[in-house]
């Protein structure tokens, strides 16, 4: 029988520790498919963060170096500057990239570092138990916003991708989601383009991925997919935010 679907070569044969319905495992797979398709497994270096994806190196079959919380862009800068032949990507959550690491992210983008940032936005700090993130929706209840996020005291959800889109060194910024088969296919195209930009030496690429966190949202998987569609993507609209590469999707 012909095999038409298999595990990507860059994805280790391991069981994901992620909760049912979590977006991380889907996104890991998409990145690995892209690494395989671009044939860069032997020169890719990944920079996973603290958080739910701290064990990403148990799944990605590429060289990886764990970053301190929020410092992914700086660590990736150091790797890429020391070894420009490497294909370097950081994998960061919303607390990581948009709160504690906002400065590192902004300035890596501004320098036009030739790296790829994968930004997982699930509107909460997942690993630590569902605290309010910079991307938490207004009115959303979390363990540190038990009465709902109040903009008067907590501010509004920050649109990091739009901010990075304003920075000259960023060549490509797109927001996608992994809440439906159609959106997952679009997410893969964006990830592939972000890696292709690096191969082509275009500069800093950022892909923001709206990703369900059923456990901390206290929803079922299907419900959380719907919540991404009906609530999150209203505040964080999907689609291209910036593209100066002059190319359409890599495929």
């Amino acid at each position: 029988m012909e095999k038409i679907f298999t595990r990507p070569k860059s994805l280790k044969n391991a069981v994901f520790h992620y909760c049912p319905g979590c977006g991380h495992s889907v996104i890991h797979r998409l990145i690995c498919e892209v690494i395989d398709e671009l044939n860069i497994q032997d020169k890719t270096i990944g920079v996973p963060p603290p958080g739910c994806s701290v064990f990403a190196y148990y799944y990605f079959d590429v060289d990886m170096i764990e970053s301190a919380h929020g410092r992914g862009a700086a660590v990736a800068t150091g790797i890429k500057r020391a070894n420009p032949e490497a294909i370097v990507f950081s994998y960061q959550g919303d607390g990581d990239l948009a709160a504690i690491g906002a400065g590192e992210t902004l300035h890596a983008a501004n320098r036009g570092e030739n790296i790829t940032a994968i930004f997982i936005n699930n509107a909460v700090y997942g690993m630590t138990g569902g605290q309010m993130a910079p991307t938490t929706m207004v009115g959303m209840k979390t363990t540190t916003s038990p009465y709902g996020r109040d903009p008067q005291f907590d501010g509004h959800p920050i649109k990091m991708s739009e901010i990075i889109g304003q920075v000259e060194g960023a060549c490509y910024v797109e927001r996608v989601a992994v809440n439906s088969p159609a959106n997952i296919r679009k997410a893969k195209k964006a990830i592939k383009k972000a890696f292709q930009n690096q191969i082509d030496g275009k500069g800093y690429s950022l892909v923001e991925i709206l990703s369900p966190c059923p456990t901390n949202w206290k929803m079922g998987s299907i419900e959380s997919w719907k919540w991404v569609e009906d609530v999150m993507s209203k505040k964080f609209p999907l689609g291209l935010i910036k593209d100066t590469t002059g190319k359409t999707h890599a495929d």
Partner: protein
Amino acid sequence: MTGNAAIAEAAIRAGCQCYFGYPITPQNELTEYMAANLSRRPGCTFVQAESEIAAINMVYGASVTGARAMTSSSSPGISLKQEGISYLAACQLPAVIVNMSRGGPGLGSIAAAQSDYFQSTRGGGHGDYRTIVLAPSSVQELADATHRAFELTDKYSIPVIILGDGMLGQMMEPVEFKHEAPAVPPVRANGLRGAKGRPSRFIRSFTSNPAELEELNWNLYRRYQQLQEEETTCECFMTEDAGLIVTAFGVGARIAKGAITNARAQGMKVGMFRPTTLWPFPKEQLKALSQNTQYFLDFEMNMGQMIDDVNLSLEGKGDVTFYGRPGGVIPTSSEVLRVITRLYYQKGLNS
């Protein structure tokens, strides 16, 4: 050449490939020298980072690939770098960190001080770790210490701190460089550069298994013990017949040396013990000196930090007096001579 520039030149000659810095006085000449010179060398890189935190994390990233990497700063900036230094220590990655220290606490002053002794020698960041700490006291020694720092950090995979101060960084002295810069900067064989022809690898400090983390701590501890046995260095100046021994480090030792020379001219038998590695501290060498005398004067440009190590080394057998000037005040040799003279007569060493 200024001390700051001497470190930068020595680092280039030691094969430093990557420098990441952030402006802060009194170490800016180092960053500027790297911007002018390292950035033009083939295969080398200079980045002015957006913060000290970013700079040390860039060092972390560069070191992962096997490149020789360094950063420099001054006291408040070194506080910010402690996060990254802890991660470097945990991941056993080489790095050279220069601290041209200034008066503290807080924003403090930009004048030379030695108040970062504790921070440098006790790890500095979170967790159970040490860094190797070198304490030069002249521009020539800064250059030599820089070369030694790169050798040590690669040999032991432990970050090395060069602890200078604002005066050493800014002073100008002749300096002789003993090494030529390599045509191609060296790359460690165990660097992560992509899994070509080998299985993929990862470097991390986090584990959910306390037993695994305990093993890491034991690994570090054993290496620290080896360092204590093999790499402690010090200078003993006129200690053979000394009734009173001044303990001092860095630029403080240089001031003390002037005072001791003058004390000798007045017939007082005074010597000096100067650790050139602050960690590991040369405690055996200091303990040996207490065979000849019990009287010690610990002189530091702070309120008394190294004195803890002096007392630990002497195991309670020394009569240790402290004299210090904190906050960036630089005492003169004659001021230290007055302290020496008073103590010398108080202890009846003239008879």
